[in-house]
């Protein structure tokens, strides 16, 4: 009995500081990523957006993305209608990481798209926050976020995957892929006024895919040149 008690004390004495050390490491890592992101006070990016949702037929369109510190974010399609995951795209990486009021939990290492990443979970301390949990996959070498999974109260869970290129020094991605869950789509015939359907069973199966994807391929960024607030209205 006495031996067990001593053993437990020793284990706690060794493991607890290790956990605390790991948490401190993760906090430092997130802080470093944040510092790198903070180099950019604003940007205007041009690119192409592709919407891939099973029950939507949409063209690839040119888009302009505006960002201004701390968390102003606007995506405008170049003369057309844009379809974005509800709440998802505005909750960009910057706005997740800008928040200081969260608990950081280290969750090991994992390889994402061939890149070794540190997994960090961010738990907001504020009970009213829409974000329930964010998991960041951070490339420790380049201090960039490779992937993020965010669970929200209102809009479900979505993934953001990022690929970097010439703007890696600013931690700005060349390609962003948003994956999100979609809800069932069924429109009453009384609204569409279409009374026959030519859908094949294969088409129907395809439509049942509940995963949606929005792909943004950025071609250029104009960084820290100022963005007018009126853009975000």
């Amino acid at each position, binding site marked *: 009995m006495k031996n067990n008690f001593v053993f437990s004390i020793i284990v706690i004495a060794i493991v607890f500081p290790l956990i605390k050390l790991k948490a401190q490491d993760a906090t430092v890592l997130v802080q470093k990523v944040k510092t790198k992101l903070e180099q950019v006070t604003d940007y205007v990016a041009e690119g192409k957006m592709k919407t891939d*949702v099973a029950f939507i037929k*949409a*063209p690839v369109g040119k888009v302009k993305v505006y960002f201004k510190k701390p968390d102003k974010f606007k995506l405008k399609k170049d003369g057309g*209608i844009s379809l974005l995951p509800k709440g998802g795209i505005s909750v960009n990486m910057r706005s997740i990481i800008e928040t200081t009021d969260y608990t950081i939990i280290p969750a090991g290492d994992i390889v994402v798209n061939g890149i070794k990443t540190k997994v960090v979970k961010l738990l907001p301390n504020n009970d009213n926050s829409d974000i329930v949990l964010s998991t960041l996959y951070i490339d420790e070498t380049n201090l960039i976020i490779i992937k993020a999974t965010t669970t929200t109260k209102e809009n479900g869970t979505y993934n953001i995957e990022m690929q970097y290129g010439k703007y890696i020094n600013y931690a700005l991605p060349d390609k962003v892929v948003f994956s999100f869950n979609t*809800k069932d789509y069924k429109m009453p015939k009384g609204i569409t006024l*279409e009374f026959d359907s030519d859908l094949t069973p294969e088409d129907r199966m395809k439509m049942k895919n509940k995963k949606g994807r929005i792909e943004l391929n950025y071609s250029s960024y104009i960084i820290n040149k100022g963005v007018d607030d009126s853009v975000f209205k």
Partner: protein
Amino acid sequence: MFTLLQIELYKIFKRPRTYIAFAAITALIIIIQLGLKVDGKEYADFVLADLQNTLEINGKIINGYFVCYVILQLLLVHVPLLIALIAADMISGEANMGTLRVLLTKPISRTEFIIAKFLAAAIYTILLLIWIAVFALLASIIIFGTDDMFLVKNAYAVQIEKVDIFWRYIGAFCFAALAMLTVAALGFFLSNFAENSIGPIVATMSVIIVTTILSTMSIPLFNKIKPYLFTTHMVAWKEFFDVKVNDANETIRGTVQNADKIIRSSIVLIAHIILFVGASVWVFKKKNVLS
């Protein structure tokens, strides 16, 4: 023949009832445009409510192209009734007034006479469609502007790029012309069998109402006869507003999802026009004209 056609057109456009259709269509279009101008956002929210559970849809949903589509959806169901007012009166109206016998004393063949009458009804029908095109499309473009077109269908939604829409309307109006000419041919055919206008007009309307109901009801028994009803094919103009997608689910500009359906329906409608007009010529040639 041309003189005969001119006379028939003169007779059509001299009658006040001809302009009822133009006035009714103008009023309906203005009412829809006014409604969408005032409460367009609410209408768009209602139509897109299901999609907006998942997506944020930004842009000018209520634009001229979309408004024209809404107008055509609502209007093209009722235009046949307005066409029947004129087409079903072409022969029976003359019989009612007692002028048919007099007209046939002129040195013209009965075939020429009947073809000229049908062509006059066809020109009226096409003018009515041009009127709709001007008010529903061009006026809506002026009032609401243009943007991509976002349409909700039963099982999916389609976004068509702004630059890829106008030619679709030209195609849709040409197809609608075929559909309306079929109605005109039916009314014209029925007008051979009566000596007053009311009978053929009501008969044409009844045929259209009954076959439209059969075309729209999803009951297995009716599904078997649907392909043979011309009203099933009359709505194929909507097919112009659906695009093909590639393997990456990106829309392909300039394509039509079911082009074969448009061709098939066009053939069916043309066959009906030929059938009704041919039958009219045959019946009229055999007819003992007493009035």
